[in-house]
């Protein structure tokens, strides 16, 4: 073994925590570096039996399909064992002005021609009916009708429309665990960490567990959730609260059974704005997950619970047996995510309100970045850390901007929550600049500087124009050929929506078939 720590190869990885973050990270690393044993990589996941996973984040982004494929599970097993359903985007209700017709879509499929031309200005100069997303994305029709994004004959992980999943986070971790341990050679340890030991450079050298074992490693990944055992408690990296921008700090959550066994399953997350926050409504195969995230500065726990109950009552879903859980939400992230030989993934790194389901996608992106940046030897840690921190600070900031965008564009005046959300000092400079820019320029690829943006220009277009934002593009910047193309694209979108809508099964119907027959690999 080399005597200088900088030359020590990075071969032993310890993941602390066995929730969604821990198992995704272990799975991505283990599938990426499959060589085990003496001259391979060892990956050990340690979790305490006393801390049950928190089970947040039942919504995902389409990146999850590539992640599951990379880890090596089949889509059929995943759908069956995690009670998962297909998600094709989000529907926002009552966000703009709470009028009767106040609803818009943020679908996963990109707007027509998105790779080549920006058609938004031409939709804007027209009658704007139907809305932006329905005009340029066929998927809204599928979402609106509760259809699946694929057929039973479509191969696994492929779709006729872009899709992700809603999943039961309580089942997702154990599902990945079984695969990681059984197929990928991840070592799983149930034990409690009582002490963290660092060397003279400040790198973590080993963990001491309750049962008296020493767990040494070259890289430690902190997936310990809110307790942030390594990045927070041991290394003392400060948590940067973003409550000044995102006011949500609490949630009431409840599980709603389907009224009939084979009741339809919505194929989008439905987000309905309330007096002081919004209600999520997510359909799994076995139940719905519903919850109200709110700001305790504007509404009390009791009043918020009443609002949530009213939401359920209107839909006929309020029954005496329901159990409501109160969950604190602390919006923000660590100032640094990778320090020395320790990197934080998941809730230990940060958490933001679940408005655009950013929690699991951030775990996937982190795991992928760690796998891609994995230093060959200890001396590479500092460089990898710098790149990782730059990338992920940027990503957290962009997510904060994008979530805030939903609130800033609202015209609701019915509560201090909505009015204060538009106050200048609560809006990050980067978002304010962007909004100024988009007044005369429709969001486009170059507006965002990174290779892999969590939310691309397409997402900005869907939300801006869904919320009723208007961009005035100078006529000198428009062309007849693009205008004609836009007209064609809109009628193609309508035709495609109709044709696909006629052949796709309902979300529930397809899931039932998959549970019974499975999906083919090809």
């Amino acid at each position, binding site marked *: 073994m080399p005597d200088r720590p900088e030359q020590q190869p990075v071969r032993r990885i310890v993941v602390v925590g066995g929730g969604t973050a821990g198992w995704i990270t272990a799975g991505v690393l283990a599938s990426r570096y499959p060589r085990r044993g003496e001259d391979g990589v060892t990956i050990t996941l340690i979790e305490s039996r006393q801390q049950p996973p928190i089970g947040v984040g039942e919504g995902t982004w389409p990146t999850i399909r590539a992640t599951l494929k990379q880890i090596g599970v089949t889509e059929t097993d995943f759908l069956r064992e995690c009670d998962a359903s297909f998600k094709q985007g989000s529907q926002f209700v009552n966000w703009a002005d709470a009028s009767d017709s106040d609803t818009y879509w943020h679908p996963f499929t990109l707007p027509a021609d998105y790779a080549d031309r920006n058609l938004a200005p031409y939709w804007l100069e027209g009658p704007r009916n139907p809305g932006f997303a329905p005009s340029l994305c066929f998927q809204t029709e599928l979402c609106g009708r509760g259809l699946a994004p694929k*057929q*039973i*004959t479509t191969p696994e992980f*492929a779709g006729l429309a872009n899709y992700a999943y809603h999943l039961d986070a309580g089942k997702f971790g154990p599902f990945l665990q079984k695969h990681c341990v059984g197929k990928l050679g991840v070592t799983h340890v149930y034990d409690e960490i009582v002490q963290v030991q660092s060397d003279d450079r400040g790198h973590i050298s080993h963990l001491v567990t309750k049962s008296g074992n020493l767990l040494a490693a070259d890289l430690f990944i902190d997936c310990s959730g809110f307790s942030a055992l390594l990045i927070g408690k041991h290394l003392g990296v400060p948590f940067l609260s973003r409550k000044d921008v995102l006011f949500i700090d609490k949630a009431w959550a409840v599980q709603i059974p389907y009224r009939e066994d084979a009741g339809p399953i919505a194929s989008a997350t439905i987000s309905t704005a309330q007096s002081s926050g919004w209600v999520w409504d997510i359909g799994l195969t076995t139940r719905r997950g519903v919850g109200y995230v709110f700001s305790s500065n504007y509404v009390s726990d009791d009043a918020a619970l009443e609002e949530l109950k009213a939401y359920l009552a209107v839909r006929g879903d309020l029954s005496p047996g329901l159990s409501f859980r109160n969950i604190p939400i602390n919006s923000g992230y660590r100032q640094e995510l990778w320090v020395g030989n320790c990197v934080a993934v998941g809730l230990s790194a940060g958490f933001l309100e679940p408005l655009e389901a950013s929690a699991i996608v951030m775990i996937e992106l982190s795991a992928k970045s760690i796998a891609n940046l994995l230093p060959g030897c200890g001396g590479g840690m500092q460089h990898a850390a710098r790149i990782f921190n730059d990338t992920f600070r940027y990503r957290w900031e962009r997510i904060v901007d994008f979530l805030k965008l939903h609130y800033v564009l609202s015209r609701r005046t019915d509560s201090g929550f909505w009015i204060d959300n538009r106050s200048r000092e609560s809006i990050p400079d980067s978002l304010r600049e962007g909004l100024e820019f988009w007044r005369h320029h429709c969001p486009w690829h170059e507006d965002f500087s990174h290779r892999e943006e969590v939310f691309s220009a397409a997402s900005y277009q869907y939300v801006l124009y869904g919320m009723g934002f208007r961009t005035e593009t100078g006529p000198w910047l428009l062309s007849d050929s693009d205008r004609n193309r836009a007209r064609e694209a809109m009628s193609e979108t309508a035709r495609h929506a109709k044709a696909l809508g006629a052949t796709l099964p309902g979300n529930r119907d397809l899931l039932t*078939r998959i549970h019974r*027959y499975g999906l*083919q*690999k*090809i």
Partner: protein
Amino acid sequence: MVNLVALDSQTHRNLRVAPRPTRECAEFNVVSVIPREFPRLLAHYPIFFTKSADSGRFEPAALLGFERKENLFFVNGRWDVAYVPLQIQRQPFSLIPRRNAPAGNQAALDVAIDLDSSNIQTQEGERLFLDDGGPSKFLQDITSILSALVSGSREAYAFTGRLAELDLIEPVRIDVEFVDRSEAKLEGLYWIAAAALKALPAAQLAELRDRGFLEWLYFQMASVSHVSGVVARKNQLLSGVTAVRGPEVRNAGPA
């Protein structure tokens, strides 16, 4: 339209059925087949796999034509090769779940007939029931075809399910140019992945042999040469001459 009614020796005592494929057979270009008929199919038909629209599972199917509703084996009102697939022979009969089946016996099935089929007659053709109400030889044959199809379809799914697990099925594309320069591209067909078969570990090869799958798999592979026969039928129909260029049958690559 299909008008399925369970057979009844009283109601259908005088019903007669023409014992040969009728015009309904012209309505499809692939017909689902079962492994037990592979040896006989191999004399005339290309066999591929298609995905069931209901379950997505692979099922063996004989290729009859290049366009929807084009059956090149049904010419001038008759089937023009010696062996007719069981799925055609059974027409216009099928099995339907027995009504009021006693609890616990959901699997009970009745032979049903499509009363709207053009096979149905009252003057000529085969009788279904004898004077004493017992089933005729014709109906007995039909019944055994139907039950062969039920067990055959179970076998077929066991066969293709195992092939899929072993990654031995892959998509295939068929591009044909006919004598009149018109073209056809067939998609949604699958065949045996020959390269994967060659690389199959001995233990799995032995398992396929022991389950009787190995010969079925080679029947499928050998049958592909009949695609040119089907092309020739089409060309004959178009102009009375045979093809200038053979069909291109190749791996479709990753789906």
